[in-house]
């Protein structure tokens, strides 16, 4: 079975641009969460979606938004990119909306120049 897939794997943008990251959860998983991992740090929670509804939001500015589609895939959008947005963006899926076992993808490495 395929794990959590994320695209693209690497991305280079310049300040002020917009970026869209995509995630496909494990088949049967209805919950998708997004995390930001800055180099040398632990992942930080950005969003959780369950059954296409936002279930949680971390301490990130409104430049960050996300949505979940009827097939449970998800995308994370970041507007007006800043240098500090450079990080590994991880998507994780789980079976239900509660704190269950998270299955992480390999992430999208975003570099903002």
């Amino acid at each position: 079975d395929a794990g959590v897939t994320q695209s693209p794997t690497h991305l280079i943008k310049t300040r002020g641009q917009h970026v869209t990251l995509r995630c496909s959860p494990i088949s049967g998983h209805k919950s998708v969460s997004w995390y930001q991992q800055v180099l040398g740090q632990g992942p930080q929670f950005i969003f959780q979606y369950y059954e296409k509804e936002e279930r949680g939001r971390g301490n990130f500015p409104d430049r960050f938004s996300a949505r979940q589609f009827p097939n449970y895939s998800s995308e994370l959008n970041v507007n007006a990119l800043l240098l500090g947005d450079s990080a590994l963006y991880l998507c994780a899926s789980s079976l239900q909306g509660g704190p269950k076992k998270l299955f992480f993808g390999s992430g999208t490495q975003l570099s903002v120049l």
Partner: protein
Amino acid sequence: QQQVKQSPQSLIVQKGGISIINCAYENTAFDYFPWYQQFPGKGPALLIAIRPDVSEKKEGRFTISFNKSAKQFSLHIMDSQPGDSATYFCAASMLDTGNQFYFGTGTSLTVIP
């Protein structure tokens, strides 16, 4: 404010030795404490998790020790192997906040042959 504090930042252990990584938390509402293992270029993968109603959980060579009164928990890796060389993250969450996990800053473990 770091919700979960992890130490040490890095650890070098001889093959066959015991690796010990410690974490501490302040929020007594946390009720789920997983440990994740991350290899370079990959997303974190769940190793083992514990709830505060037990003091110890063992799975193979991995053991979590949990001290509720001290608000501390630790990961013990017995008979450490070179293949265990990775970054380890502790995390914590509250049952009613879905998949919002608070991660520690990570411990880079190197097991030398």
